[in-house]
């Protein structure tokens, strides 16, 4: 501690602290969770039975034993369909880690087999949207140009024009879509998780949803213009220009004007 206390007056200390701060910011931004791909599977009575057991031990505390929900705690899951379960559990949003403005994606708690069993159980409670097939979510079959028009009309106001995500009210936010699997993107449009509205097949047809996925996959390429800075708009870009850009200019000016020792 004593050496630390004496070193704090070292002339490199401010630079070190700034670099430390930048490293911390970068580190926080880099913490993202990825989700495994999903595959459509056959629904069997065994799967429903296994799913019911999993549900009773992992979900029933909040959603109730019959998945009928509890007032002001958790919604009913009757009729939400397999797609909703595959999205919520498959991205790690459920089981909920803690209550807050919105459930956040985190490490997935179940393997894909267990998720499919849970989905099969919930789907057996009432009809709802099913998990899309691999062909429905294959972006290479879609039209990214049409997907861009649809995305910019229906999605860009929250998720940003290239899917970088953005802020909502009171701590809620629209997440970035660059890491989301095509299946989860499709399911999110279909079921409208949390704050997100529903884009059912009458609004965006399955082909239109595939076009949107195709457009989003195009955005995962590196940008030709340089750093994207998260593509979340003027806040990140302004921070970069004012703090990093002008900071470097001021540092150079100070150095130019300083007398040589």
């Amino acid at each position, binding site marked *: 501690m004593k050496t630390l206390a004496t070193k704090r007056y070292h002339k490199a200390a401010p630079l070190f602290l700034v670099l430390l701060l930048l490293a911390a910011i970068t580190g926080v931004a880099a913490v993202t969770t990825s989700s495994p791909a999903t595959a459509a599977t056959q629904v069997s009575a065994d799967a429903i039975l296994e799913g019911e057991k999993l549900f009773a031990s992992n979900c029933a505390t909040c959603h109730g034993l019959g998945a009928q929900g509890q007032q002001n705690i958790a919604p009913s899951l009757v009729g939400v369909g397999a797609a909703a379960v595959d999205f919520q559990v498959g991205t790690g949003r459920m089981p909920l880690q803690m209550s807050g403005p919105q459930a956040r994606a985190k490490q997935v708690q179940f393997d894909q087999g267990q998720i499919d069993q849970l989905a099969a159980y919930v789907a057996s409670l009432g009809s709802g949207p099913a998990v899309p097939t691999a062909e429905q979510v294959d972006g290479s079959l879609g039209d990214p140009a049409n997907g861009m*028009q*649809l995305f910019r*009309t*229906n999605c860009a*106001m*929250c998720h940003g024009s290239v899917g970088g995500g*953005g802020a*909502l*009210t009171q701590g*809620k936010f*629209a997440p970035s879509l660059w890491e989301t699997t095509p299946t989860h993107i499709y399911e999110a449009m279909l079921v*409208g998780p*949390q*704050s*997100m*509205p*529903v*884009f*059912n097949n*009458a*609004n965006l047809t399955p082909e239109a949803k595939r076009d949107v996925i195709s457009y989003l996959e195009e955005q995962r*390429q*590196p*940008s*030709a*213009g*340089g750093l994207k800075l998260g593509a979340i708009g003027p806040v990140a870009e302004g921070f970069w220009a004012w703090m990093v850009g002008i900071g470097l200019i001021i540092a150079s000016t100070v*150095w*130019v004007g300083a*007398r*040589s*020792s």
Partner: protein
Amino acid sequence: MSNPDQTPHNDAPESFKDPGVPYHRPRRADVDPKAAKRAERQVAALFGLSVLGTIIALWAYFGLDISDDIASIQQVNTMIGVGIMLAMLGIGFGAIHWAKTLMRDHEMVEERHELRSSEEAREGAIQNLKDGVVDSGIGAAANGVPRRGLLKGSLITALAIAPLALLVPQIGNMGGDWNISKFRHTMWKQGTRLARDPDGTPIKASDVTIGSVFHVIPEGLNELETHKIEEKSKAVVLLIRLDPRDLNIQPGREDWSFDGIVAYSKICTHVGCPVALYEQQTHHLLCPCHQSTFDVANGCKVVFGPAERPLPQLPIALDSDGYIVAQRDFEEPVGPSYWTRLKTPAVASTGEEASS
């Protein structure tokens, strides 16, 4: 407090004295040959960095392959940029470092010359002006030069009207069109179907499930020959279905919605941004520009932000084929609050039309 024997500030000098050139402190490179040698090497290294940068930029331009994918374009752009940066900064920083460490740093004094011109030059200038007045004949006739009233008058006329060539087109373009009802009315008419943006297909009530949001344009907008963008920017609507139990229907608007389906203008009443960030769980609509927040469950009244009044609601109904149609136009002007001053007569007149 006051002391007659002692006038205050009597120790202060009459004026500040010139402190002179500060004490010359030699730099390390001045006294230590090793430090001078080190500085020389640093400068040479900076120039060498510049050479390296030039080589990097040229190598990136000629050596790196640009194929169709964006990643390779980004790589080439980045490497050329880094190369140019090193090339320029290396020269600049090297030159400054050279000047700061190795060139002489003796203090110099340079006297400032007086700003005022000499008396002779000032008198000469005034005399020139006076001679000009006499020679031009603007003033009284003198020295055999006649008085040139015609030239004086025509010059003043020319100077006076010359600005009109600039001003008339500018001012003339303002306020040429005082048809304010264009702002008050949109494309929506009785029976216009609500259609999807951008493809323009009509929407059935059964398509709009609970929690759904449709971005809506009037049917026929895409077929407009002129002013399509203007009409779209006024007429865009957000169609939302709430659980009917969550929807508090506003007094006087009992028949404006259908089974939880409501349609509101997408143009913010603050400064006209498209309000489209709908949060399904809170039923709040957020404007991305200034965070005005509207509560869809309660007539889109403002719950946060700078907007002054609720979003205008479009009265909707179903036609015989099950498609959602407009009952009539908005009952108030859409968009920024400036137009609220037009609101009262508009409501009165269209209300009569609706009941007739």
